[in-house]
């Protein structure tokens, strides 16, 4: 029983352990960190929703080896990214680059939000400016309101001559 538990624990650990930590690593911890950061930016080309750092796919493993090799060979992060993009397209990058074909992607949501905001502002401005708008009550209306409220205090609601109910907009001035 305990043996089974131990085996289960080992299995869970093995599954949870990032794929990158299980293989040959670079001796220089700084370079190794660079390799791991870069691998997290690169999409596994056969699993699509996983990064090369997380994937157990064979080709992801090969790409991790390639990233480590190129880092040791003195290539910059950008050079390694460019190498992979040249072969697999922008698809290998989790973060799409900011260029003409992706403007809609990057700016679209903000543009849409701005448009909606503009529309809302225009809508309320127009409503406020239109002639039929409800602004402050005139002196005559103030007097009637006071009168109606006074009546409501003294009488039951269904009896008063001026009582039209709170929702009735057809009444009055």
């Amino acid at each position: 029983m305990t043996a089974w538990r131990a085996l289960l624990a080992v299995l869970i650990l093995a599954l949870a352990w990032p794929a990158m930590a299980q293989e040959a690593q670079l001796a220089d911890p700084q370079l190794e960190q660079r390799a791991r950061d870069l691998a997290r930016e690169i999409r596994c080309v056969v699993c699509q929703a996983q990064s090369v750092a997380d994937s157990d796919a064979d080709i992801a493993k090969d790409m991790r080896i390639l990233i480590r090799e190129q880092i040791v060979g003195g290539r910059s992060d950008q050079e390694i990214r460019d190498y992979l993009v040249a072969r697999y397209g922008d698809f290998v990058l989790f973060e799409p680059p900011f260029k003409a074909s992706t403007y809609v992607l990057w700016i679209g949501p903000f543009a849409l939000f701005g448009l909606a905001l503009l529309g809302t502002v225009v809508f309320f401005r127009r409503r406020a400016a239109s002639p039929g708008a409800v602004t402050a009550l005139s002196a005559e209306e103030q007097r009637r309101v006071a009168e109606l409220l006074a009546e409501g205090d003294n009488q039951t609601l269904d009896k008063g001559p001026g009582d039209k109910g709170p929702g009735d907009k057809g009444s009055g001035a």
Partner: protein
Amino acid sequence: MRRLVYLLPILLVAALVAVFWRGLDPARDKSALPSALIGQPAPALDLPPLREGDPSFSLAAFKGKPVAVNFFASWCLPCRAEHPLLSRIGDEFGIPVVGIAYKDTAANARGYLAELGDPYAAIGQDESGRAGIEFGLTGVPETYILDGEGIIRYRLAGPISPENFADQLAPEIRAVLQ
């Protein structure tokens, strides 16, 4: 002008519907990635030869005439399915088919060709899979058509079938041969 503003939401919804409709098209292959290397020079592969006694493998040696490059592996089942069709490329169009044994041991790849026949003009051994990455490979089998300048003109990801041979591969080879 005012009327146009009222039309705007309808147009926006119509555009969205068009986008989603395209995404729902069952004929669209969702796993097909655009190939970044189409129209680019093929990587100059220098690999150890798979066949004993062959000179060392160099893809650049085939420059000057169109060539088909086929990635295969003994562990790859669809490769078996497409294997008989590989010799048809040479038979029908007279262009060499070059093989790359992708992530395979030499012994296994040799055994595979001994069993199924060897249609290749030359075979490079890519045990590490690096040549595959150089080509932007996502799996085996994959077949590339290179023109006489060594430019990649076409990529078929997945096995060649009698259908895609007739519909896709053959027209692409004909276009390169012209």
